[in-house]
């Protein structure tokens, strides 16, 4: 068991270091600690505008989500790696080739995920929080309690996903019944029983007020969920084959005005059926945008609202450019090399699909302008966001070709990307802050964007045929 645990730890490290590069990945905990330290220092200022309870809840919810995502990635890891590397496997899936039971392997897997991600994410975050205390003035007891409750929140997310996956493996109906019963119990306890809703999330309740019974309850839930997952583990999944009616033909028909309609229809189906469109929009776009908006809102007392909106629109454009990575993560170039398609065709089609996703950006930025009482700023802010998105996407295509998710971890590419976009973005934000009318100047970014995309055809065609 110990050997298996150690081997799984090594394997996890190698998966990440292969994807992102050893040095880049080794610096990841340092980055987390730095961000946490910055957050810790800003906490007293944030607390002036946002209720402290809400900040605490959001951070605990984030750790719960992080735990759930780690669990989810662990269980879907093979599929993710297959998409990225072609054929891949993990020790966790080798029960049929090793003289070890599924249960034993899964127990080692749970232990590995717990230890590895505590070391990678949770502890660096807590270290950053602790390092910020001299400036934030937070008492050490607060940091100590947060360390405990956030660790428990993370483990709750992890063990919940493991439990749900075990239930799913037995029966989808059982999963639905248990989840339904959970929701019903929560309604009964809080609605009829009058229980404070924070007790539904014991780690957060523990953070709000330390007590031994709450600590034991939090720990008990994690232990129970993990034990049930391991005890009732089954390797046989129901409904393995997913069937769909032909949506490709009609979709390609609807997109027939586009030169690359079949490729765009495939991109849309990839995103939709993988759950990526909803998941990525929520976690990779709306969530970061929400965090940025909250952070910028803090500056509301010293900056005019329209200026905040312009800054937000510019940053939103940069974030929107990452939608290009959503479109490329499902494909390896090899999947196209036996079809009459060149690198230029693939880049053009991905860019067209990227444009197809931009209503998400437009609605988010324009909608926010209207919701915050700045309807007059909606159009210039939206134009700015879309222009920056297209330009930043052009830069990304030029620098990373069809491999943005991998290449972005190259320090050189990252630095070049900052050089290409940073000054342009700052210049536009500064100009638009003087007068919103200047935001419309951003449409001229389409020209360098298209030029960069054009230049990328030859650059990446040469690279791919030389190195792949």
């Amino acid at each position, binding site marked *: 068991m110990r050997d298996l645990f150690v081997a799984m730890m090594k394997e996890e490290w190698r998966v990440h270091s292969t994807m992102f590069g050893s040095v880049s990945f080794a610096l990841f905990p340092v980055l987390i600690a730095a961000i946490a330290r910055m957050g810790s220092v800003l906490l007293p200022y944030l607390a002036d505008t946002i209720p402290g309870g809400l900040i605490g809840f959001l951070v605990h919810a984030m750790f719960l989500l992080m735990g759930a995502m780690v669990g989810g990635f662990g269980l879907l890891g093979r*599929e993710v790696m297959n*998409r990225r590397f*072609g*054929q891949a496997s993990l020790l966790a899936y080798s029960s049929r080739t090793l003289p070890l039971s599924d249960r034993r392997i899964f127990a080692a897997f749970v232990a590995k995920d717990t230890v590895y991600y505590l070391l990678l994410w949770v502890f660096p975050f807590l270290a950053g929080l602790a390092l910020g205390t001299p400036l934030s003035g937070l008492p050490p007891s607060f940091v100590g309690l947060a360390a405990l409750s956030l660790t428990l929140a993370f483990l709750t997310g992890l063990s919940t996903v493991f439990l749900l996956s075990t239930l799913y493996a037995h029966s989808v109906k059982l999963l639905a019944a248990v989840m339904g019963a959970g929701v019903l119990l929560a309604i009964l306890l809080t609605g009829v029983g009058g229980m404070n809703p924070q007790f539904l999330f014991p780690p957060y309740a523990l953070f709000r007020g330390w007590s031994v019974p709450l600590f034991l309850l939090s720990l008990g839930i994690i232990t129970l969920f993990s034990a049930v997952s391991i005890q009732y583990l089954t390797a046989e999944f129901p409904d*393995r*084959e*997913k*069937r*769909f*009616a*032909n*949506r*490709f*033909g009609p979709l*390609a028909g609807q997109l027939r005005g586009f030169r690359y*309609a*079949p*490729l765009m*229809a*495939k991109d849309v*189906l*990839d995103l*939709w*059926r*993988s759950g990526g469109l909803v998941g990525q929009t929520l976690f990779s776009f709306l969530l970061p945008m929400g965090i940025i908006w909250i952070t910028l809102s803090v500056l509301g007392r010293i900056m005019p609202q329209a200026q905040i909106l312009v800054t937000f629109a510019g940053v939103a454009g940069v974030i929107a450019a990452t939608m290009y990575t959503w479109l490329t993560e*499902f*494909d*390896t170039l*090899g*999947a196209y*090399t*036996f*079809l*009459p*398609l*060149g690198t230029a*065709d693939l880049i053009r089609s991905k860019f067209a699909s990227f444009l197809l996703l931009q209503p998400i950006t437009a609605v988010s930025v324009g909608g926010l302008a209207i919701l915050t009482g700045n309807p007059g700023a909606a159009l210039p802010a939206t134009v700015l966001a879309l222009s920056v998105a297209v330009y930043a996407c052009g830069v990304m295509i030029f620098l990373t070709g069809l491999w943005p998710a991998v290449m972005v971890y190259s320090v050189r590419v990252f630095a070049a990307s900052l050089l290409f976009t940073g000054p342009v973005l700052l210049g536009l934000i500064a100009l638009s802050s003087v007068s919103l009318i200047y935001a419309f100047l951003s449409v001229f970014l389409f020209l360098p964007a298209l030029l960069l995309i054009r230049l990328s055809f030859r650059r990446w065609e040469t690279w791919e*045929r*030389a190195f*792949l």
Partner: protein
Amino acid sequence: MPPVIQAEQLTRRFGDVTAVNQVSLDVQAGSLFGLLGPNGSGKTTMIRMLTGQIRPTSGSARVLGMDVAAEPVAVREKVGIIPEQESPPSFLTAEEYLSFVAKVRRLDEGEERAGWWFDFLEFEEKRDVLCKDLSRGTRQKLMFAQAFLHRPVLALIDEPLINFDPVMQQKVKEYLREYVRDGGTIFISTHILEIAEEICTDVAILHLGNLVHAGPVAGILAGKKHLTGFFLEAVGKGADA
């Protein structure tokens, strides 16, 4: 009639490793050509160069009269390719994938042709299953169908039968023979010598990236040798060299 495939001193290096070393060979129209060799001999690299997936380090190749390095997309327009490892896209169903290929290849009768392949390769009941959920054998059937959907005059296939059961192997072998009888050309890469002996008209043997033999199968069998014995001898020679 000029050969459908002409390789001239084709070489590919990956860093310090020479995967294919100055290989020259011709494949005539109407032949079922087998590229044989042990694991790591350079067969897959050779196919990838001939289909324009990778550029040769030196040397050249012409396929159907076109320079592959200069016109890779035009070559892939004309030929059918089944790579060894690549799978169809995960989130399309089998039917949608063939529809996708038909649209990319701008085929008017894509649907009917796809229907014929579902029927011929006996996987009609998997039409609406996502490609990621298909078994290896069914994925191989799908890859086979996509390669022949546009009725190419030349097909290049890396390990054509490796995931098929014996019944399907027989059916596919018969299809390949008939395809060649109808004027098509097949270039396969395999290390299963029994298959090569049974269906190939010509073979070439690669060993450590070097071409150690090229010629008709009939010539080998006329020497009262089985292909396996001949192959082992050729590879032994290659090793000595």
